[in-house]
């Protein structure tokens, strides 16, 4: 932990996290509210005697090999390949930095689909189902797992119809043309419009670029680095008024949990 703090330009300005807590006027000793913060201070005290933390997971690697998280929970390998090709067109690698493939975005989507979210667990999915007005939001009966299953198949079918090739065999421009047809709502799909599926694919891709790496995407926090976003930080109290832009080395929630 101490080593991590040294690398952190924000915390470097202070001598330690504990003194930052004092400097910033936190009165923790008092009442009911010290709970969460008090726990952190307690943890830090323990850490000074800890040299090796067995909970620390290996850093996810961009090559998809050394990272045990880079495996499939929901997609078939074929579905994964289509999704992996599509997300790269939505968020491609370029001079600015890695694209969705290197950020492991398709794994993120796979894992999300395997979760309650993929089955719309906390959403109202009871009938009767009627096609609503646009102002009434999604009214379909398909959950996200089903939408992706239907949608990825439709991408494949549309590619074969249009170019007589699998989506993954198309050039980047051809893949873009296929995806644009989906975006424009020009592809027939069962249960949901192609435009709806495209928007879901797009928004989930962006989530996979920028969500905390604990969810499997944003590998090595490289998504955050694109936007110079510092991720999880305890405090900006001492620099909130600062004029100059400051790039802070990002931290993920694992630094909080495993410190």
């Amino acid at each position, binding site marked *: 932990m101490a080593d991590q703090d040294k690398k952190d330009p924000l915390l470097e300005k202070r001598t330690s996290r504990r003194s930052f807590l004092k400097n*910033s006027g936190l009165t923790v000793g*008092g009442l009911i509210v010290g709970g969460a913060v008090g*726990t952190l201070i307690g943890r830090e005290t323990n850490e000074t005697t800890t040299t090796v933390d067995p909970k620390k997971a290996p850093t996810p690697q961009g090559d998809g090999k050394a990272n045990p998280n880079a495996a499939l929970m929901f997609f078939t390998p074929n579905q994964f390949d289509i999704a992996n090709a599509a997300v790269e067109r939505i*968020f491609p690698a370029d001079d600015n930095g890695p694209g969705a493939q290197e950020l492991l975005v398709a794994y993120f989507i796979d894992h999300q689909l395997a979760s309650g979210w993929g089955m719309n667990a906390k959403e109202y*999915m009871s009938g009767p189902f009627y096609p609503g*007005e646009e102002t009434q939001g999604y009214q379909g009966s398909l959950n996200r797992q089903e939408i992706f299953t239907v949608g990825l198949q439709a991408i494949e079918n549309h590619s074969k119809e249009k170019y007589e090739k699998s989506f993954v065999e198309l050039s980047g421009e051809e893949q873009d043309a296929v995806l644009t047809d989906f975006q424009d709502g020009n592809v027939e799909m069962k249960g949901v419009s192609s435009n709806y599926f495209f928007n879901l694919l797009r928004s989930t891709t962006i989530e996979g670029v920028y969500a905390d790496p604990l969810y499997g995407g944003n590998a090595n926090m490289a998504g955050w680095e694109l936007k110079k976003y510092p991720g999880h930080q305890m405090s900006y109290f001492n620099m909130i*008024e*600062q004029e100059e832009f400051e790039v802070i080395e990002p931290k993920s929630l694992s630094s909080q949990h495993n410190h």
Partner: protein
Amino acid sequence: MATTLPKTDVVLIGVGWTGGILAAELTKKGYQVVGLERGRGRSTSDFIMVHDELRYALRYDLMQDLSKETITFRNNDKMRALPMRQYGSFLLGTDLGGSGVHWNGQTWRFLPYDFQIRTMTEERYGKDKIPEDMMLQDWGITYDELEPYFDQFDQMAGISGEENPHGGKRSNPYPTGPMKHTPVMTLFKEACENLGYKPFTQPSANLSESYTNPDGIARAACQYCGFCERFGCEYGAKADPTVTVLPVAESTGKFDLRTHANVVEILHEGNRATGVRFIDVQSGEEFIQPAEVVAVTSYVLNNVRLLLQSGIGKPYDPKTGTGVIGKNYAYQNMCASTTGFFEEREFNVYAGAGSLGMCVDEFNGDNFDHSNLNFLHGANIFLGQLGKRPIQNNAVKPDTPSWGAKFKEESIKYHNRSISFNAQGASMPFRYHYLDLDPTYKDAFGNPLLRMTYDFKEQDNEMSKFMASKTEEIMKEMGASEIIVMKEKGPYNIVPYQSTHNTGGVIMGDDPSTSALNSYLQMWDFENIFVPGASAFPHNSGYNPTGTVGALSYRAAEGIDLYLKNGGSLV
């Protein structure tokens, strides 16, 4: 078979801000209070992992499970209402502390004009100024009468701020000083000053400095970590019920909090409530909690639904204009969204706080002349620096595609080089904007969902265009090289997030034929039922509602005390 529990003085249906304030005030006075919370308990330690945009902002960890309960929606009564299957326009909080946990902390007092809006509008512009279908009405209480309760809320929560040059008179200054100013805020402030406005720091429950309130509750200062709205505060710096009023209630030994207790019915005999029926959602057991006073303290929409479902009060009928429960549903006219691009400058916008901002009130309420305008009331124009999280913020210039290389390049480039602000407009009540029970869709217990009928009106569109002209002017003055302004409002769409400021449905007033509650938030026709909360607002102002909700809750606490002592109608 329901188990009947021992009778209590007061039972609370829901334990958020309104329930929490009643719990603290009434237990301090010696009453026994039972708080029934449908969700789980909460404390700051639940939020050690809270800096997680996906879990909280996009997967709605703190929000009601819509699979069990939602609403149905239609723009007008010609349409078939359909369920809100997913979150969008507004977010419904759940668990201990309710929406008071996931709020931003923007804490306002409504204007003196708000409370006497019909009288003052007619005085200044004549009766014809108010359109026939606009159900504008006075609140049955004035700002001056409500001021001591506003002050109580401010002192309890430790509100940080500085005097609003256009606000109502204050008996005390803000208990804590204004929040710190960021370069973005300074840019906005200077631009507004150059244009002749009087900008001021947004009032905040984020706490600018360590503070001990009159109940002896000490809280730490905000760390500007950038995770407020949709998140809970791990520091306890942001005022919420679990770090302010609930510990006070608990310390009296007179507060019995039951979590996972979902109230499904208010029981009554004649015009008197006898208690509530609730289900323990973990065991499935059913209980009856008898009480001398029933306080309906859940979110706006559930307050209305529970009354309708229990057959309490006369349901509103828009065709005849009679009845009161479900009447005057209003919302918030979030408008004039304005984004400016700054090529040469990057800002530390990842840092922020839910209520860190600058604003101007020149065009709010009746602070400006409406003689030649086709709308009433106005908006607070505010720039907030809330912490710009990367999934939800992807500002790009017009005509940029929404995906692909160009999108990536621009959304990265402008992440720290763009600034957005907007106007928070008042929402006026209309005859056909109302809440009732849906004839088709049911919740997990088999009870009908609440049905919302609502749309934006010409009033909202006119206000939006007016505010957009002002916000654009400010952004120009700030030096943006390119500006995008949303001028027109389309129909109300339940999909994009706008605001969790739903109001009305159980409104207060001075006449039992046009309102459900008197000025103590006591029901006119059920004297032992009190319904504080934003459901009591006859219209919504150009501000966040919580400050006024807090004041009304302190007023209701006083009313319940008076009722328990003397009985009868308090007005």
